[in-house]
């Protein structure tokens, strides 16, 4: 892969006088100049509201916005651009399916199957829906190695109308066998929603090949701006869904007595959308395609192998998850040092890692670790940064050990 680091301005900054070592990519990715410039250019040259203007700026903004939709559609291999609904983030995408589809088509007692490794964004919407309409939630267990327990998938699927699970774990690194689960789910007539927040920057995504019905992801984790994400859905399903937010642009006509809805994706994009952000997402997928998602995947594999060799050399370090199919996300604990202290100490060395429950409290309970440290890499990280991490972990250990007894 060509040298991509200089594409990311922030990577040349320092923190506490040390070069920034950004290992918090699972929380959010950094942005290449191409994306930053796309925003800048938009506001300096074409900013206008979309869809309803017949003047040059509005037409240009609309064209750019819809062009971004086409780019995102191509990026995930959607059948058509209209299968892409722009949302704020993965969370909104998942909630949109809960509101627009599940609330309409599920009834009391229907089972929604989730997994124990889900991010809160794929648990809480279902709690809310359960409390409102009485669906039943069931959870696939997680094995000790961080893979999903699929040993009795058929039993787990009994009575299930919807399976919703993550493509890749933001804690364990595990990449789940989407196709296998989707096929089994479809065999019992269930629909399949995939949380692609972590999957989408780690590998080429082909929603058709994955065999799911919806796929949600966040732009900010994909080198794009904050405030934008996408929900891909099979068009027939989007068509069957109720609107979620009401307002401008999502209607066909409004009378005082009632309203009729526009076709998807407009139906789900009420109000002035995140225009510059969608355009920024388009620029991000252009950028990623210019590198190649297969190359990115290969780079991730190299970094992962290196990290898996180095991290266990730190005494007292316990990695969570050892799935054979995994991305460059490493949650761990270090004996005697709380993850928050570790994160704060590493920051002194310019190293950004995350500490806490990573929005996956049930998974933390499953592994008996309410909080862990997490180093998560992206294709623009380099092995030297893993070395820096290991050195810093050693240093932290020493500092805390010196006090002990």
């Amino acid at each position, binding site marked *: 892969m060509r040298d991509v680091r200089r594409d990311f301005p922030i990577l040349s900054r320092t923190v506490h006088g040390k070069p920034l070592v950004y290992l918090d990519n699972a929380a959010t990715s950094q942005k290449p100049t191409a994306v930053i410039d796309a925003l800048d250019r938009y506001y300096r040259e074409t900013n206008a509201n979309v869809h309803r203007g017949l003047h040059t700026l509005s037409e240009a903004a609309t064209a750019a916005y819809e062009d971004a939709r086409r780019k995102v559609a191509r990026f995930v291999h959607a059948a058509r651009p209209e299968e892409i609904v722009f949302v704020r983030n993965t969370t909104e995408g998942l909630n949109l399916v809960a509101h627009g589809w599940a609330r309409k088509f599920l009834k009391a007692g229907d089972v929604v199957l989730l997994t124990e490794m889900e991010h809160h964004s794929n648990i809480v919407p279902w709690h809310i829906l359960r409390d409102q309409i009485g669906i039943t939630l069931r959870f696939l267990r997680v094995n000790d190695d961080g893979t999903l327990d699929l040993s009795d998938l058929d039993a787990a699927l009994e009575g299930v109308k919807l399976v919703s699970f993550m493509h890749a774990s933001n804690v364990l690194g595990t990449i789940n066998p989407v196709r296998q689960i989707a096929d089994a789910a479809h065999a019992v007539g269930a629909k399949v929603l995939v949380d692609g927040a972590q999957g989408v920057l780690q590998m080429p995504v082909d929603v058709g090949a994955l065999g799911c019905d919806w796929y949600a992801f966040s732009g900010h984790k994909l080198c794009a701006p904050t405030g934008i994400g996408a929900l891909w859905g099979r068009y027939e399903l989007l068509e069957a869904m109720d609107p979620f937010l009401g307002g401008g642009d999502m209607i066909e006509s409004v009378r005082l007595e009632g309203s009729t809805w526009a076709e998807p994706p407009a139906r789900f994009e009420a109000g002035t959308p995140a225009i510059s952000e969608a355009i920024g997402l388009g620029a991000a997928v252009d950028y990623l395609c210019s590198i190649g998602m297969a190359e990115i995947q290969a780079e991730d594999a190299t970094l992962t192998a290196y990290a898996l060799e180095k991290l266990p050399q730190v005494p007292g370090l316990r990695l969570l998850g050892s799935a054979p199919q995994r991305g460059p996300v490493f949650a761990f604990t270090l004996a005697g040092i*709380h993850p*928050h*202290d570790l994160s*704060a*100490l590493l920051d*002194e060395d310019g190293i950004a890692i995350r500490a806490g429950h990573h929005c996956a409290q049930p998974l933390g309970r499953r592994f008996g670790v*309410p909080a862990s440290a997490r180093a998560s890499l992206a294709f623009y990280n380099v092995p030297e940064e893993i070395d820096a991490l290991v050195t810093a972990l050693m240093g932290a250990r020493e*500092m805390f050990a010196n*006090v*002990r007894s």
Partner: protein
Amino acid sequence: MSVRDMYREVILAHAQDPLHSGKLPDATDCVHRENTSCGDAIDLCAIVKDGVLVDLRYESAGCAISTASASMMTDALIGMTKADAAAMLASFRAFLIEHSELDPKLEELDALEGVRQFPARIKCALLAWQALEEILKKT
């Protein structure tokens, strides 16, 4: 000031061997408190008799700062009246947030001075005290 300086020896020592931690079977009051943003949690229990904090114990999961704060807090407050404890709470809060002088009875907690430079960590130092506040409100 660097983060390293925040972790004074005494803090690390308390964090590694916290005082008065554990269950309190005869507790008259127990409260649970969590920092939602980081997941730190404490269960603080007290035996309150005639307005006196006869005993305090806690079970906690948290960083060195929050653990050391709980350890030093309980050590300083056991045996105090609720009124005195409330004054200590006020003093500690003011110490952290308004950088005022700490009440001499909280002497050891002075070690947490460095936390004031790290706004994100102030809530760690306050967690046990917020639990205490709820105990004080009760009964």
